[in-house]
């Protein structure tokens, strides 16, 4: 399985976790960050099924969500499910690194959350 | 001119027996009731009147769809196409949409056109669904072959129903057909096919007795006007 290719940024001064990158800490303005990797499984914070997809997607719908990893990194990703029926706010999901779309015939990789409850 | 019935018999194709489409009533977003029913062959001249203004509307490929539908309905009326059927949608008697297709044989259906004369109420979506319902549930076919002539149609039919591409030439002469199978139909039925049956008698009688065609300007504005969605 491919590893999660994400770098998050923990403020060296106040500890706030950022993803994506900011030049100054959103809390204390410090410019020093420790690069951290998202850890463990994640908790699904919110989600939706998008039916009117933009140019570049040919499927009927796509489920998108935001999840929080065990070390506080929060990120958006696609949710690997056939419908939102089985999804719940706060449920546990396993992060995978997989193709999320194609551009110019090439796979673009990103986060895919797989429900595990 | 005495009609040469012998020659006419050669030109006029024999037809398969086709089970009727039971009428239904759909409540639209604005609360209005749309009667969906099978048109009779004798009604074709009235239907042509409703289709005619669309021949001159290039927006969203209405002209292509309109011109071809016009010819298909005329062919049905004059017995030059076999096993054709036509379903219409009516609100307060007014024709708001026309869809048609035909049986290629017992098993295979050929979807022709979907024309919404009123827009913004998902009339096209409702009538296309009724057409698939007719092929699969009432004509008892195992598959329907479909192509789209407009980007809107492509997005709606191919993606909404998850149709599968084939290498079968569609009768309209354009690209290869997409296929709707019985299985796909019943999978999408809960979210795409609605309507109350039996259609309330009063609504149905009114629709049968009063087939109105909006005037040309109204049709133009509804399809190609500023407020067109």
């Amino acid at each position: 399985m491919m590893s999660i290719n994400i770098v998050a940024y923990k403020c060296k001064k106040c500890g706030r976790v950022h993803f994506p990158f900011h030049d100054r800490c959103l809390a204390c303005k410090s410019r020093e960050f420790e690069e951290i990797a998202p850890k463990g499984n994640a908790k699904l914070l919110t989600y939706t099924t998008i039916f009117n997809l933009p140019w570049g997607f040919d499927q009927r719908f796509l489920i998108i969500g935001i999840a929080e990893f065990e070390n506080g990194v929060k990120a958006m990703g696609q949710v690997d499910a056939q419908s939102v029926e089985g999804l719940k706010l706060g449920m546990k999901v396993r992060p995978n690194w997989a193709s999320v779309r194609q551009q110019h015939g090439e796979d673009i990789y990103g986060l895919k959350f797989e429900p595990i409850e | 001119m005495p009609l040469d019935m012998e020659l006419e018999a050669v030109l006029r194709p024999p037809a398969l027996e086709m089970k009727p489409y039971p009428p239904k009533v759909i409540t639209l977003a604005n609360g209005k009731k749309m009667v969906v029913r099978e048109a009779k062959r004798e009604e074709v001249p009235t239907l042509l009147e409703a289709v005619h203004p669309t021949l001159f509307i290039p927006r969203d490929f209405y002209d292509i769809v309109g011109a071809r539908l016009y010819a298909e309905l005329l062919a049905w009326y004059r017995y030059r196409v076999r096993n054709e059927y036509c379903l219409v949608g009516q609100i307060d008697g007014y024709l708001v949409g026309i869809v048609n297709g035909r049986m290629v044989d017992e098993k295979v259906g050929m979807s022709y056109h979907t024309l919404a004369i009123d827009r913004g109420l998902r009339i096209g979506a409702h009538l296309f669904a009724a057409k698939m319902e007719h092929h699969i549930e009432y004509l008892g076919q195992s598959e329907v072959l479909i192509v789209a002539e407009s980007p809107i149609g492509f997005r709606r039919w191919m993606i909404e129903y998850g149709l599968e591409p084939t290498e079968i030439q569609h009768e309209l002469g354009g690209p290869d057909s997409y296929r709707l199978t019985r299985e796909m139909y019943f999978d999408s039925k809960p979210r795409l096919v609605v309507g109350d049956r039996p259609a309330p008698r009063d609504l149905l009688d009114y629709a049968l007795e009063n087939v109105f065609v909006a005037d040309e300007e109204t049709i133009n504005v509804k399809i190609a006007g500023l407020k067109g969605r």
Partner: protein
Amino acid sequence: MRDVAIIGVGMIPFGRRDEDSLMDLLAYASLKALDDAGLGDKSVNAVYVGNMGGGIIQHQTAIASSLVDRLSLLPAAAETVENGPASGGSAVKNGLLAVASGYYDYVLVVGGEKMREVTGWKATDFVSTMTHPEVEYPYGVTLPGMAGMFTRLYMEKYGVTREHLTAVAIKNQDMGALNPYAHVEMSISREGILDSPHSVVNNPPVADPLHLYDACPVSDGAAAVILCPLEIAKKTGKPPVLIAGFGQATDTHTLQERDDPTDLKAVSLAAKQAFEMAKLKPADIHVAELHDAFTILEIAESEHVGFFKKGEGAIAALAGKTKLGGQIPINVSGGLKARGHPVGATGVAQVVEITFQLRHELPKNRQVKGAENGLTVNFGGFGNNVLAFVLRRVQQ
């Protein structure tokens, strides 16, 4: 700082304007505003054009330079203001500050967008370009998608239901049906979009729990205002409308980095600043144009600007408190939901509508009787850049 008033407004009907180019739309609205201000063949000192998509959709840039030339406003200063769906509001703000500073006396602000030039999915992609290019956009997220995720949390936290959202949709489409400028001139029924089993086709989900009739249409359109110092405005024929307050605030680009994603901080802050500058309270407002790109946003904004407590906006909407004749009429124009949302035009169109209201020149079925103070909220990104204006009718 000088007091700044609106002396002229102009708007063209929103919808699908296949015959007109983006420049046509901007020019038509501008001419109407110039005429309304009584400037006729006179010029202005500066022009601010609110537009988001010219570069992407029309493949055209430097739109303001082109517009002043077309309108024979040379050598007026001119620039295009791009700030996502808040481009219109930002253009008004730039005009306001330019006149308030004393640098310019007459300013034309015009917002416009032509979105129907491309297919729906290309328009959706265009709007999605305001999401984060690395951690949001690649996933296929759209603005309705952002709103769907927000709605799910708002429903969970405050008990908002589809019934509440439907009440907003019905109200705004009913009002749009009375507004000749509105894109959607059709009333809808609760039966057709919620109660009937047929509603699954009429009103399918677009980004659950949001459905088709919770979302604004994709529109073409333009709106314009002419600003000048209040002292000059007082000498004109029409009741001057003072821009009494203004506020603008930003929030994190991504939804995921907000401590409480249901808290639209930029809306609260922008409104607070606008009220403080105007020395008014939410209760002093008689009519409001809120940015209802989605029904949930009208409810959430009505709470964040202070008309209702958190969690009570939905109840108020269902109870009819936000209708014409209610406690605080919201989106009497039909809002973005029915008037349409040509992104760059919206912020200006909201100010135009409130000006109509405060001049008391609308027909009875649209006029908030005796309205003196109005509020607009123009919501950019998904709440990451928000502008608010408080407008006040001034006695001549």
